[in-house]
């Protein structure tokens, strides 16, 4: 744990009840879903975490209640610090407040998390699918979404795959 990170962690744990754990030098603070906007605002203004490096989600599928875990990774360019903030999100109609007001690059990151995991973001300017085609149903990066593995065509199973492969007519 870098010494400069101490005041930030104290401030975070004081204002929002949060657990802090550290692994291999990365500090991770877990806070509640409602307070993410305030935390982001505080981190950017008071502690100069001016760059939202990335924002993504992880799907712990069999567990139902906190099924998703959304990770915000903040970087402070001036103090060369990294801090990741975790938010637990339930599985049934998951939703989170948006932080696009604070960080502009959250606009696309949140659209990607919506597209890949189906987590809604209230207040997002235009929450559309970003990577998948617009009429795609299902959210691919969820654990219960099939990989879409098709059996590759080798010599031994060439004929039967050839029959059902939809070749393009002229």
């Amino acid at each position, binding site marked *: 744990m870098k010494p400069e990170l101490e005041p930030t962690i104290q401030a975070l744990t004081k204002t929002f009840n949060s657990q802090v754990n550290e*692994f*291999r030098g*990365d500090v*991770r603070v877990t806070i509640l879903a409602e307070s993410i906007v305030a935390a982001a605002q505080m981190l950017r203004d008071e502690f100069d975490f*001016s*760059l*939202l*490096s*990335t924002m*993504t989600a*992880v*799907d712990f599928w069999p567990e139902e209640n906190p099924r998703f875990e959304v*990770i915000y*990774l903040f*970087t402070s*360019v001036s103090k*060369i610090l*990294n801090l*990741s903030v975790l938010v637990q999100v339930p599985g049934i109609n998951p939703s989170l407040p948006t932080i696009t007001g604070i*960080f*502009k*690059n959250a*606009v*696309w990151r949140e659209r990607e998390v919506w597209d890949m995991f189906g987590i809604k973001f209230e207040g997002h300017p*235009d929450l559309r*699918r*970003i*990577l*998948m*085609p617009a009429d795609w149903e299902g959210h*691919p*990066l969820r654990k219960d*979404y099939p*990989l*879409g*593995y098709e059996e590759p065509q080798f010599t031994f199973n060439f004929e039967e795959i050839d029959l059902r492969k939809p070749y393009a007519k002229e």
Partner: protein
Amino acid sequence: MTQLQEVSVDDIKHLVSERAIQGETVLLNMGPQHPSTHGVLRLLLELDGETVVSCIPDIGFLHTGIEKNMESKTYAKAAVMTDRLDYLNTLGNNLAYSMAVEKLIELDVPDRAQSIRVILAELQRIASHLIWLGTTGLDVAAMSTFLYCFRERESILDIFELCSGQRMMTTYIRPGGIWRDVPVEFEAAVRAFIKMFPKRVDEYEALLSRNPLFLDRTFGIGAVSSEQALNFGMTGPPLRASGVKWDLRKARPYSGYEQYDFEVPTRTEGDVYARYIVRIEELRQSVKIIEQALNKMPLGPVRSSNHKFVPPPRSEIGVNMEALIHHFKLWTEGFSAPKCAVYNAVESPRGELGVYIVSDGGPKPYRIHWRTPSFDNLLALPFMAKGVLVADLVAIIGSVDIVLGDVDR
């Protein structure tokens, strides 16, 4: 004559201004197949004559689900997929992924492998910048730079082929070091390249830097201030061109970068010309790094000897029973990582390339997220493109240097 399939304006009504709905401004698709979008990027442009009123990027045309695919492969086999992410910076992807896995399982890397990794990463940075320079030259009607840049890139690809047998998708940097030692001719080839290359960069500068046509097309266009750049999440040359001195090789040195002295070129204007100057300067700095790394390259093993995670060399398998067991376990089931999450970032030619691995204790990564720089650099395009001529928009897309494999993953 079948009826013209027209996409009516009202299903994108919430994105464009109302002048488009009345039909005053033209809605044009600078679509997935376009010579100057550097890949399959679709820009829905709202044009008033030649000036761009608003530009709405639509990405995903090269989304290949690499993150989902990697979840079904073991750590060693997932390394092969990392090359296909940012296909101009294949060794940089390998480096980011290998260092993340090494951080996850606390694997040591011998010094010789560290310096070879630095040499290859810097050579890959030069090759990537050369493609950027060639294609941006093409976009701004300087046709000859394309041929010069690809001539130099061929000599870099010969070096990659020399040590790994493949030109682009080498997967040469793997968790625990590099795949095998570089051949004897490697050092001579790299020295020859370093001796020849600075003169070639002066050739490019002579072609473009003080060329009035190039200056008219690039000066003062698409300027981004440093606060806006940080707020958009831009990293790499576009951020350094806006005046923020943020380079991961200096900020958080990895793989031995702290031993080499090189400057991080920055400018303050943040426009297309500033990004051009920053990248041209980075070409020279990379040559300096390669030279120092080559001089400091120690002898010794190139891959960690911890055979729980790294497959033993083939010579040992026939002789040593334990090595055979390690080899068999690693290549069938793979090593299992502790249950935790790790983030590791590397400076790619486009910016901060980070890998976030969540592991559940099994041999396969539970979730891999790639923080790719082009995804955020592209986000600033609509802001830069407001009120700009279409020809300048082409120069701006070139200057941001996006790679669609990086954006769509």
